[in-house]
Protein backbone atom coordinates (compact mmCIF):
# COMPACT_ATOMS: atom_id res chain seq x y z
CA UNK A 1 0.00 0.00 0.00
CA UNK A 2 2.81 2.40 0.95
CA UNK A 3 4.66 1.47 -2.23
CA UNK A 4 1.55 2.12 -4.26
CA UNK A 5 1.09 5.58 -2.75
CA UNK A 6 4.75 6.50 -3.30
CA UNK A 7 4.63 5.29 -6.91
CA UNK A 8 1.40 7.20 -7.65
CA UNK A 9 2.73 10.35 -5.97
CA UNK A 10 5.94 10.24 -7.99
CA UNK A 11 4.13 9.73 -11.27
CA UNK A 12 1.59 12.48 -10.49
CA UNK A 13 4.31 14.99 -9.64
CA UNK A 14 6.40 14.07 -12.67
CA UNK A 15 3.53 14.30 -15.13
CA UNK A 16 2.32 17.55 -13.56
CA UNK A 17 5.79 19.06 -13.79
CA UNK A 18 6.28 17.86 -17.35
CA UNK A 19 2.90 19.31 -18.40
CA UNK A 20 3.77 22.69 -16.94
CA UNK A 21 7.29 22.64 -18.35
CA UNK A 22 6.12 21.72 -21.82
CA UNK A 23 3.39 24.37 -21.64
CA UNK A 24 5.96 27.01 -20.65
CA UNK A 25 8.35 26.06 -23.41
CA UNK A 26 5.47 25.86 -25.90
CA UNK A 27 5.14 29.61 -25.53
CA UNK A 28 8.81 29.95 -26.45
CA UNK A 29 8.53 27.49 -29.32
CA UNK A 30 5.36 29.21 -30.55
CA UNK A 31 7.21 32.50 -30.88
CA UNK A 32 10.27 30.89 -32.43
CA UNK A 33 8.06 29.05 -34.88
CA UNK A 34 6.17 32.23 -35.77
CA UNK A 35 9.54 33.87 -36.33
CA UNK A 36 10.59 31.01 -38.59
CA UNK A 37 7.43 31.26 -40.69
CA UNK A 38 7.61 35.05 -40.91
CA UNK A 39 11.34 35.13 -41.63
CA UNK A 40 12.51 36.81 -38.44
CA UNK A 41 14.32 35.74 -35.29
CA UNK A 42 11.66 35.48 -32.61
CA UNK A 43 12.79 35.88 -28.99
CA UNK A 44 16.59 36.05 -28.90
CA UNK A 45 17.60 38.27 -25.96
CA UNK A 46 16.82 36.32 -22.78
CA UNK A 47 19.35 33.56 -22.63
CA UNK A 48 20.84 31.55 -25.44
CA UNK A 49 18.30 31.43 -28.33
CA UNK A 50 15.85 33.19 -26.04
CA UNK A 51 15.51 30.05 -23.94
CA UNK A 52 14.91 32.04 -20.75
CA UNK A 53 12.01 33.89 -22.36
CA UNK A 54 9.25 31.83 -20.62
CA UNK A 55 10.81 32.65 -17.22
CA UNK A 56 10.99 36.32 -18.12
CA UNK A 57 7.35 36.26 -19.24
CA UNK A 58 6.29 34.50 -16.04
CA UNK A 59 8.19 37.02 -13.93
CA UNK A 60 6.58 39.89 -15.77
CA UNK A 61 3.12 38.41 -15.22
CA UNK A 62 3.81 37.92 -11.49
CA UNK A 63 4.98 41.48 -10.89
CA UNK A 64 2.25 43.28 -12.81
CA UNK A 65 -0.49 45.18 -11.06
CA UNK A 66 -3.48 43.07 -10.14
CA UNK A 67 -6.80 44.68 -11.07
CA UNK A 68 -10.15 43.24 -10.03
CA UNK A 69 -13.13 45.13 -11.47
CA UNK A 70 -15.18 46.80 -8.75
CA UNK A 71 -18.58 45.49 -9.72
CA UNK A 72 -17.65 41.93 -10.57
CA UNK A 73 -18.38 38.87 -8.46
CA UNK A 74 -14.98 38.72 -6.78
CA UNK A 75 -15.06 35.09 -5.71
CA UNK A 76 -15.99 33.77 -9.14
CA UNK A 77 -13.60 36.20 -10.80
CA UNK A 78 -10.69 34.75 -8.86
CA UNK A 79 -11.94 31.18 -9.15
CA UNK A 80 -12.28 31.12 -12.96
CA UNK A 81 -8.59 31.00 -14.04
CA UNK A 82 -7.85 28.32 -11.46
CA UNK A 83 -10.81 26.25 -12.59
CA UNK A 84 -9.72 26.57 -16.21
CA UNK A 85 -6.19 25.37 -15.53
CA UNK A 86 -7.37 22.50 -13.31
CA UNK A 87 -9.67 21.13 -16.00
CA UNK A 88 -6.87 21.57 -18.54
CA UNK A 89 -4.48 19.42 -16.50
CA UNK A 90 -7.14 16.86 -15.52
CA UNK A 91 -7.28 15.12 -18.91
CA UNK A 92 -3.57 14.37 -18.51
CA UNK A 93 -4.26 11.65 -15.94
CA UNK A 94 -5.38 9.31 -18.72
CA UNK A 95 -2.34 9.37 -20.94
CA UNK A 96 -0.24 6.16 -20.88
CA UNK A 97 3.22 7.57 -21.43
CA UNK A 98 5.04 4.32 -22.03
CA UNK A 99 5.09 0.54 -21.61
CA UNK A 100 4.87 -0.54 -17.97
CA UNK A 101 8.11 -0.83 -16.01
CA UNK A 102 8.42 -3.96 -13.92
CA UNK A 103 10.46 -3.75 -10.74
CA UNK A 104 10.86 -6.89 -8.62
CA UNK A 105 8.01 -8.57 -10.47
CA UNK A 106 5.51 -5.75 -9.89
CA UNK A 107 4.37 -3.89 -12.96
CA UNK A 108 4.21 -0.11 -12.77
CA UNK A 109 2.34 1.48 -15.71
CA UNK A 110 3.47 4.97 -16.68
CA UNK A 111 -0.05 6.33 -16.34
CA UNK A 112 -1.71 8.11 -13.45
CA UNK A 113 -5.04 6.35 -13.69
CA UNK A 114 -6.30 3.70 -16.08
CA UNK A 115 -10.01 4.54 -16.02
CA UNK A 116 -12.05 1.88 -17.78
CA UNK A 117 -14.31 4.54 -19.32
CA UNK A 118 -11.37 6.78 -20.18
CA UNK A 119 -12.67 7.99 -23.53
CA UNK A 120 -15.92 9.24 -22.03
CA UNK A 121 -14.00 10.74 -19.12
CA UNK A 122 -12.00 12.68 -21.69
CA UNK A 123 -15.20 14.02 -23.28
CA UNK A 124 -16.55 14.91 -19.83
CA UNK A 125 -13.41 16.78 -18.84
CA UNK A 126 -13.30 18.76 -22.08
CA UNK A 127 -16.92 19.73 -21.67
CA UNK A 128 -16.34 20.88 -18.10
CA UNK A 129 -13.40 22.98 -19.30
CA UNK A 130 -15.82 25.54 -20.63
CA UNK A 131 -16.89 26.57 -17.11
CA UNK A 132 -13.63 28.41 -16.46
CA UNK A 133 -14.15 30.56 -19.53
CA UNK A 134 -17.86 31.13 -18.91
CA UNK A 135 -17.47 32.05 -15.24
CA UNK A 136 -14.52 34.28 -16.03
CA UNK A 137 -16.35 36.03 -18.83
CA UNK A 138 -19.50 36.57 -16.83
CA UNK A 139 -17.92 37.69 -13.56
CA UNK A 140 -15.85 40.32 -15.39
CA UNK A 141 -19.12 42.22 -15.83
CA UNK A 142 -18.08 43.39 -19.25
CA UNK A 143 -20.08 42.95 -22.45
CA UNK A 144 -17.04 41.96 -24.50
CA UNK A 145 -16.03 39.36 -21.94
CA UNK A 146 -19.55 37.95 -21.82
CA UNK A 147 -19.73 37.74 -25.61
CA UNK A 148 -16.35 36.03 -25.72
CA UNK A 149 -17.44 33.54 -23.07
CA UNK A 150 -20.67 32.76 -24.89
CA UNK A 151 -18.85 32.27 -28.18
CA UNK A 152 -16.37 29.94 -26.52
CA UNK A 153 -19.03 27.80 -24.92
CA UNK A 154 -21.22 27.61 -28.03
CA UNK A 155 -18.17 26.60 -30.03
CA UNK A 156 -17.14 23.93 -27.55
CA UNK A 157 -20.61 22.40 -27.36
CA UNK A 158 -20.93 22.35 -31.16
CA UNK A 159 -17.59 20.69 -31.82
CA UNK A 160 -17.96 18.20 -29.02
CA UNK A 161 -20.66 16.36 -30.98
CA UNK A 162 -18.51 15.67 -34.01
CA UNK A 163 -15.62 14.78 -31.72
CA UNK A 164 -17.76 12.30 -29.80
CA UNK A 165 -18.96 10.56 -32.96
CA UNK A 166 -15.41 10.40 -34.33
CA UNK A 167 -14.40 8.76 -31.05
CA UNK A 168 -17.20 6.17 -31.36
CA UNK A 169 -15.75 5.13 -34.71
CA UNK A 170 -12.32 4.92 -33.08
CA UNK A 171 -13.69 2.74 -30.28
CA UNK A 172 -15.20 0.35 -32.83
CA UNK A 173 -11.84 0.12 -34.61
CA UNK A 174 -10.03 -0.67 -31.39
CA UNK A 175 -12.40 -3.51 -30.61
CA UNK A 176 -14.87 -1.85 -28.26
CA UNK A 177 -12.60 -0.81 -25.44
CA UNK A 178 -13.07 2.54 -23.71
CA UNK A 179 -9.77 2.53 -21.88
CA UNK A 180 -7.02 4.77 -23.18
CA UNK A 181 -4.19 2.39 -22.33
CA UNK A 182 -5.91 -0.50 -24.12
CA UNK A 183 -6.52 1.63 -27.22
CA UNK A 184 -2.80 2.39 -27.32
CA UNK A 185 -1.81 -1.20 -26.56
CA UNK A 186 -4.04 -2.52 -29.40
CA UNK A 187 -1.92 -0.59 -31.91
CA UNK A 188 1.14 -2.58 -30.87
CA UNK A 189 0.44 -5.29 -33.41
CA UNK A 190 -0.53 -4.13 -36.88
CA UNK A 191 -1.08 -0.58 -37.98
CA UNK A 192 -1.76 2.60 -36.05
CA UNK A 193 -5.41 3.59 -35.89
CA UNK A 194 -4.92 6.43 -38.36
CA UNK A 195 -4.62 3.86 -41.16
CA UNK A 196 -8.17 2.64 -40.45
CA UNK A 197 -9.53 6.03 -39.41
CA UNK A 198 -8.08 8.69 -41.73
CA UNK A 199 -11.32 10.69 -41.92
CA UNK A 200 -11.93 10.20 -38.21
CA UNK A 201 -8.48 11.56 -37.45
CA UNK A 202 -9.04 14.70 -39.53
CA UNK A 203 -12.38 15.32 -37.82
CA UNK A 204 -10.85 14.76 -34.40
CA UNK A 205 -7.94 17.03 -35.22
CA UNK A 206 -10.19 19.92 -36.33
CA UNK A 207 -12.40 19.44 -33.28
CA UNK A 208 -9.40 19.34 -30.95
CA UNK A 209 -8.24 22.61 -32.43
CA UNK A 210 -11.67 24.12 -31.86
CA UNK A 211 -11.88 22.74 -28.31
CA UNK A 212 -8.55 24.23 -27.35
CA UNK A 213 -9.65 27.62 -28.75
CA UNK A 214 -6.60 27.84 -30.95
CA UNK A 215 -6.42 29.95 -34.08
CA UNK A 216 -8.13 29.72 -36.55
CA UNK A 217 -10.83 28.91 -34.00
CA UNK A 218 -9.94 31.56 -31.42
CA UNK A 219 -13.16 33.49 -31.91
CA UNK A 220 -13.52 33.74 -28.14
CA UNK A 221 -10.62 36.15 -27.90
CA UNK A 222 -10.94 37.79 -31.28
CA UNK A 223 -9.09 41.11 -30.82
CA UNK A 224 -10.65 42.84 -33.79
CA UNK A 225 -14.19 42.40 -32.47
CA UNK A 226 -14.04 41.73 -28.74
CA UNK A 227 -10.96 43.56 -27.37
CA UNK A 228 -9.52 40.54 -25.53
CA UNK A 229 -12.56 38.26 -25.36
CA UNK A 230 -13.28 36.51 -22.09
CA UNK A 231 -10.03 37.65 -20.46
CA UNK A 232 -10.41 41.36 -21.25
CA UNK A 233 -10.69 42.31 -17.57
CA UNK A 234 -7.97 39.98 -16.34
CA UNK A 235 -4.51 41.19 -15.48
CA UNK A 236 -1.26 39.94 -13.99
CA UNK A 237 -0.96 36.25 -13.22
CA UNK A 238 -4.66 35.48 -13.60
CA UNK A 239 -4.33 36.44 -17.26
CA UNK A 240 -1.14 34.39 -17.26
CA UNK A 241 -3.06 31.33 -16.02
CA UNK A 242 -5.65 31.70 -18.78
CA UNK A 243 -2.96 31.91 -21.46
CA UNK A 244 -0.98 29.12 -19.84
CA UNK A 245 -3.99 26.81 -19.68
CA UNK A 246 -4.36 27.14 -23.44
CA UNK A 247 -0.88 25.68 -23.89
CA UNK A 248 -1.57 22.90 -21.41
CA UNK A 249 -4.75 22.09 -23.35
CA UNK A 250 -2.75 22.00 -26.54
CA UNK A 251 -0.16 19.68 -24.99
CA UNK A 252 -2.78 17.30 -23.62
CA UNK A 253 -4.81 17.17 -26.82
CA UNK A 254 -1.64 16.58 -28.86
CA UNK A 255 -0.79 13.69 -26.56
CA UNK A 256 -4.34 12.34 -26.90
CA UNK A 257 -4.17 12.46 -30.68
CA UNK A 258 -0.75 10.82 -30.74
CA UNK A 259 -2.10 8.07 -28.48
CA UNK A 260 -5.48 7.54 -30.14
CA UNK A 261 -4.46 7.68 -33.78
CA UNK A 262 -0.67 7.36 -34.02
CA UNK A 263 0.09 4.49 -31.72
CA UNK A 264 1.33 6.36 -28.65
CA UNK A 265 4.49 4.70 -27.43
CA UNK A 266 4.45 2.11 -30.24
CA UNK A 267 6.47 2.66 -33.37
CA UNK A 268 7.20 0.53 -36.47
CA UNK A 269 9.50 -2.45 -35.86
CA UNK A 270 9.60 -1.70 -32.15
CA UNK A 271 9.83 -5.36 -31.14
CA UNK A 272 12.52 -6.17 -33.69
CA UNK A 273 14.60 -3.29 -32.35
CA UNK A 274 14.04 -4.33 -28.73
CA UNK A 275 15.00 -7.91 -29.59
CA UNK A 276 18.11 -6.78 -31.43
CA UNK A 277 19.12 -4.78 -28.35
CA UNK A 278 18.46 -7.85 -26.19
CA UNK A 279 15.92 -6.12 -23.93
CA UNK A 280 13.48 -8.02 -21.75
CA UNK A 281 9.77 -7.25 -21.56
CA UNK A 282 9.20 -4.74 -18.75
CA UNK A 283 12.72 -3.34 -18.79
CA UNK A 284 13.01 0.33 -17.98
CA UNK A 285 14.98 0.95 -21.18
CA UNK A 286 11.94 -0.12 -23.22
CA UNK A 287 9.78 2.24 -21.20
CA UNK A 288 12.23 5.05 -21.77
CA UNK A 289 12.35 4.46 -25.53
CA UNK A 290 8.54 4.18 -25.66
CA UNK A 291 8.19 7.38 -23.68
CA UNK A 292 10.60 9.08 -26.07
CA UNK A 293 8.59 7.92 -29.09
CA UNK A 294 5.35 9.17 -27.54
CA UNK A 295 6.93 12.48 -26.61
CA UNK A 296 8.32 13.11 -30.09
CA UNK A 297 4.89 12.45 -31.60
CA UNK A 298 3.30 14.85 -29.12
CA UNK A 299 5.82 17.57 -29.90
CA UNK A 300 5.23 17.13 -33.63
CA UNK A 301 1.51 17.63 -33.05
CA UNK A 302 2.15 20.76 -31.00
CA UNK A 303 4.23 22.11 -33.86
CA UNK A 304 1.46 21.32 -36.34
CA UNK A 305 -0.97 23.27 -34.15
CA UNK A 306 1.39 26.24 -34.31
CA UNK A 307 2.03 25.86 -38.00
CA UNK A 308 -1.73 26.07 -38.63
CA UNK A 309 -2.13 29.03 -36.31
CA UNK A 310 0.44 31.09 -38.19
CA UNK A 311 -0.80 30.05 -41.62
CA UNK A 312 -4.59 30.24 -41.65
CA UNK A 313 -6.52 33.41 -40.76
CA UNK A 314 -9.35 33.36 -38.25
CA UNK A 315 -12.82 32.20 -39.32
CA UNK A 316 -15.94 34.33 -39.23
CA UNK A 317 -18.35 33.19 -36.56
CA UNK A 318 -21.01 31.92 -39.01
CA UNK A 319 -18.32 30.03 -40.95
CA UNK A 320 -17.26 28.40 -37.69
CA UNK A 321 -20.77 27.24 -36.89
CA UNK A 322 -21.37 26.05 -40.47
CA UNK A 323 -18.16 24.05 -40.39
CA UNK A 324 -19.12 22.44 -37.10
CA UNK A 325 -22.73 21.59 -37.78
CA UNK A 326 -22.98 21.27 -41.56
CA UNK A 327 -19.63 19.73 -42.45
CA UNK A 328 -18.00 17.97 -39.51
CA UNK A 329 -21.14 16.45 -37.99
CA UNK A 330 -22.38 14.79 -41.24
CA UNK A 331 -18.82 13.76 -42.07
CA UNK A 332 -18.40 12.12 -38.69
CA UNK A 333 -21.68 10.22 -39.17
CA UNK A 334 -20.48 9.11 -42.60
CA UNK A 335 -17.20 8.03 -41.03
CA UNK A 336 -19.10 6.00 -38.47
CA UNK A 337 -21.10 4.24 -41.19
CA UNK A 338 -17.96 3.48 -43.22
CA UNK A 339 -16.19 2.24 -40.10
CA UNK A 340 -18.97 -0.20 -39.28
CA UNK A 341 -18.84 -1.69 -42.81
CA UNK A 342 -15.04 -1.89 -42.85
CA UNK A 343 -14.85 -3.41 -39.39
CA UNK A 344 -17.49 -5.98 -40.33
CA UNK A 345 -15.25 -7.21 -43.14
CA UNK A 346 -12.18 -7.06 -40.90
CA UNK A 347 -14.04 -9.27 -38.45
CA UNK A 348 -14.07 -6.90 -35.48
CA UNK A 349 -17.87 -6.82 -35.41
CA UNK A 350 -20.16 -9.82 -35.44
CA UNK A 351 -23.88 -9.68 -35.89
Amino acid sequence: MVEFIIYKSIICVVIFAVSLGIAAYSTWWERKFAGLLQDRWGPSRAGWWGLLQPLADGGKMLFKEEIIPNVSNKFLFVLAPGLFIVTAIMAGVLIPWGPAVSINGTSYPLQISDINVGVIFLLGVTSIGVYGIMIGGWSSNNKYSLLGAIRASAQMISYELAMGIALIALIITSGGTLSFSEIVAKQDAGFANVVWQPLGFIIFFVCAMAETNRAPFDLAECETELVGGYHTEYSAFKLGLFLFAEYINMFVSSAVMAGFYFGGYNFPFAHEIYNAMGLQEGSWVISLIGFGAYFVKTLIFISVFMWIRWTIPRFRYDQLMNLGWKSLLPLSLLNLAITVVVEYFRGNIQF
Partner: protein
Amino acid sequence: MLGYTITQWTFGILSFLAIMFALMVVFSRNPINSVLYLVLTFFCIAGHYLLLNAQFLAVVHIAVYAGAIMVLFLFVIMLMNLNQDSEPQKTAISKVIAGVIGGLLLVVLVGALRGTEQINLTQYGHSDIGLVKNLGRVLFHEYLFPFEIVSILLLSALVGAIMIGKKEIK
Protein backbone atom coordinates in the same frame (compact mmCIF):
# COMPACT_ATOMS: atom_id res chain seq x y z
CA MET B 1 -12.68 5.18 12.29
CA LEU B 2 -15.70 5.26 14.62
CA GLY B 3 -16.74 1.85 13.38
CA TYR B 4 -17.42 2.93 9.81
CA THR B 5 -15.60 1.79 6.69
CA ILE B 6 -14.07 4.21 4.20
CA THR B 7 -16.96 3.58 1.81
CA GLN B 8 -19.47 4.54 4.47
CA TRP B 9 -17.53 7.69 5.30
CA THR B 10 -17.37 8.62 1.62
CA PHE B 11 -21.07 7.96 1.25
CA GLY B 12 -21.87 10.11 4.28
CA ILE B 13 -19.70 13.02 3.21
CA LEU B 14 -20.97 12.89 -0.37
CA SER B 15 -24.59 12.78 0.76
CA PHE B 16 -24.05 15.68 3.12
CA LEU B 17 -22.42 17.73 0.36
CA ALA B 18 -25.09 16.78 -2.18
CA ILE B 19 -27.91 17.85 0.14
CA MET B 20 -26.09 21.02 1.17
CA PHE B 21 -25.44 22.06 -2.42
CA ALA B 22 -29.02 21.20 -3.38
CA LEU B 23 -30.26 23.49 -0.59
CA MET B 24 -27.88 26.20 -1.75
CA VAL B 25 -29.40 25.96 -5.24
CA VAL B 26 -32.72 26.97 -3.74
CA PHE B 27 -31.46 29.50 -1.21
CA SER B 28 -28.84 31.46 -3.14
CA ARG B 29 -30.06 34.84 -4.34
CA ASN B 30 -28.10 34.97 -7.54
CA PRO B 31 -29.33 32.62 -10.32
CA ILE B 32 -25.77 32.12 -11.59
CA ASN B 33 -24.74 30.85 -8.16
CA SER B 34 -27.75 28.54 -8.19
CA VAL B 35 -26.64 27.02 -11.47
CA LEU B 36 -23.09 26.55 -10.20
CA TYR B 37 -24.35 24.88 -7.01
CA LEU B 38 -26.48 22.59 -9.14
CA VAL B 39 -23.35 21.59 -11.05
CA LEU B 40 -21.66 20.76 -7.74
CA THR B 41 -24.71 18.70 -6.77
CA PHE B 42 -24.34 16.72 -9.98
CA PHE B 43 -20.72 16.04 -9.15
CA CYS B 44 -21.72 14.67 -5.74
CA ILE B 45 -24.31 12.41 -7.36
CA ALA B 46 -21.69 11.21 -9.83
CA GLY B 47 -19.62 10.30 -6.78
CA HIS B 48 -22.51 8.20 -5.54
CA TYR B 49 -22.61 6.36 -8.86
CA LEU B 50 -18.91 5.65 -8.46
CA LEU B 51 -19.58 4.16 -5.02
CA LEU B 52 -22.10 1.85 -6.70
CA ASN B 53 -19.34 0.77 -9.11
CA ALA B 54 -21.16 2.36 -12.04
CA GLN B 55 -18.27 4.26 -13.64
CA PHE B 56 -19.97 4.59 -16.99
CA LEU B 57 -23.06 6.17 -15.50
CA ALA B 58 -20.94 8.50 -13.36
CA VAL B 59 -18.86 9.79 -16.25
CA VAL B 60 -21.84 10.11 -18.59
CA HIS B 61 -23.69 11.94 -15.85
CA ILE B 62 -20.88 14.49 -15.66
CA ALA B 63 -20.43 14.77 -19.41
CA VAL B 64 -24.14 15.19 -20.16
CA TYR B 65 -25.55 17.03 -17.15
CA ALA B 66 -22.62 19.08 -15.89
CA GLY B 67 -20.92 19.41 -19.24
CA ALA B 68 -23.74 20.07 -21.67
CA ILE B 69 -27.10 20.77 -20.07
CA MET B 70 -25.89 23.05 -17.29
CA VAL B 71 -23.66 24.93 -19.73
CA LEU B 72 -26.80 25.74 -21.71
CA PHE B 73 -28.59 26.81 -18.51
CA LEU B 74 -25.70 29.06 -17.62
CA PHE B 75 -25.72 30.39 -21.15
CA VAL B 76 -29.37 31.42 -21.01
CA ILE B 77 -29.14 32.92 -17.51
CA MET B 78 -26.06 34.91 -18.43
CA LEU B 79 -27.80 36.29 -21.51
CA MET B 80 -30.90 37.26 -19.52
CA ASN B 81 -28.62 39.14 -17.12
CA LEU B 82 -30.81 38.62 -14.06
CA ASN B 83 -29.84 40.60 -10.99
CA GLN B 84 -31.50 42.18 -8.02
CA ASP B 85 -32.54 45.33 -9.92
CA SER B 86 -34.28 43.55 -12.76
CA GLU B 87 -35.87 40.83 -10.63
CA PRO B 88 -39.66 41.20 -10.58
CA GLN B 89 -41.04 42.20 -7.18
CA LYS B 90 -43.01 39.43 -5.50
CA THR B 91 -46.06 40.51 -3.61
CA ALA B 92 -46.88 39.16 -0.16
CA ILE B 93 -49.89 37.20 -1.40
CA SER B 94 -47.85 35.31 -4.01
CA LYS B 95 -45.35 34.35 -1.32
CA VAL B 96 -48.16 33.05 0.91
CA ILE B 97 -49.69 31.06 -1.93
CA ALA B 98 -46.30 29.60 -2.86
CA GLY B 99 -45.72 28.64 0.78
CA VAL B 100 -49.09 26.91 1.07
CA ILE B 101 -48.63 24.98 -2.18
CA GLY B 102 -45.12 23.93 -1.23
CA GLY B 103 -46.32 22.79 2.20
CA LEU B 104 -49.14 20.77 0.65
CA LEU B 105 -46.68 19.10 -1.72
CA LEU B 106 -44.51 18.21 1.27
CA VAL B 107 -47.51 16.67 3.07
CA VAL B 108 -48.39 14.63 -0.03
CA LEU B 109 -44.83 13.38 -0.41
CA VAL B 110 -44.47 12.46 3.25
CA GLY B 111 -47.84 10.71 3.15
CA ALA B 112 -46.86 8.77 0.05
CA LEU B 113 -43.58 7.71 1.66
CA ARG B 114 -45.33 6.61 4.86
CA GLY B 115 -47.51 4.16 2.94
CA THR B 116 -44.62 2.35 1.31
CA GLU B 117 -43.10 -0.82 2.61
CA GLN B 118 -39.41 -1.07 3.01
CA ILE B 119 -37.83 -2.95 0.15
CA ASN B 120 -35.17 -5.46 0.99
CA LEU B 121 -32.33 -4.56 -1.31
CA THR B 122 -30.13 -7.36 -2.48
CA GLN B 123 -26.57 -6.39 -1.85
CA TYR B 124 -24.17 -7.34 -4.61
CA GLY B 125 -20.68 -7.56 -3.22
CA HIS B 126 -18.57 -6.40 -6.12
CA SER B 127 -21.19 -5.86 -8.74
CA ASP B 128 -20.04 -5.29 -12.31
CA ILE B 129 -23.51 -4.36 -13.46
CA GLY B 130 -22.52 -0.74 -14.09
CA LEU B 131 -19.66 -1.49 -16.46
CA VAL B 132 -20.17 -0.58 -20.10
CA LYS B 133 -20.06 -4.14 -21.36
CA ASN B 134 -22.79 -5.39 -19.02
CA LEU B 135 -24.87 -2.27 -19.43
CA GLY B 136 -24.77 -2.60 -23.21
CA ARG B 137 -25.66 -6.28 -23.08
CA VAL B 138 -28.65 -5.61 -20.84
CA LEU B 139 -29.83 -2.62 -22.85
CA PHE B 140 -29.60 -4.32 -26.22
CA HIS B 141 -30.92 -7.73 -25.19
CA GLU B 142 -33.43 -7.52 -22.38
CA TYR B 143 -34.57 -3.93 -22.74
CA LEU B 144 -34.18 -3.46 -26.48
CA PHE B 145 -37.78 -2.38 -27.08
CA PRO B 146 -37.95 0.28 -24.34
CA PHE B 147 -34.54 1.49 -25.47
CA GLU B 148 -35.76 1.96 -29.04
CA ILE B 149 -38.89 3.73 -27.80
CA VAL B 150 -36.73 6.13 -25.79
CA SER B 151 -34.56 6.84 -28.81
CA ILE B 152 -37.64 7.61 -30.90
CA LEU B 153 -38.84 9.95 -28.15
CA LEU B 154 -35.48 11.74 -28.19
CA LEU B 155 -35.54 11.94 -31.98
CA SER B 156 -38.99 13.51 -31.97
CA ALA B 157 -37.85 16.00 -29.32
CA LEU B 158 -34.89 16.86 -31.56
CA VAL B 159 -37.10 17.38 -34.59
CA GLY B 160 -39.47 19.47 -32.51
CA ALA B 161 -36.67 21.69 -31.24
CA ILE B 162 -35.41 22.25 -34.76
CA MET B 163 -38.94 23.08 -35.97
CA ILE B 164 -39.37 25.67 -33.21
CA GLY B 165 -35.91 27.12 -33.71
CA LYS B 166 -36.18 27.36 -37.49
CA LYS B 167 -36.88 30.64 -39.22
CA GLU B 168 -40.29 31.05 -40.82
CA ILE B 169 -40.25 29.94 -44.46
CA LYS B 170 -42.07 32.40 -46.65
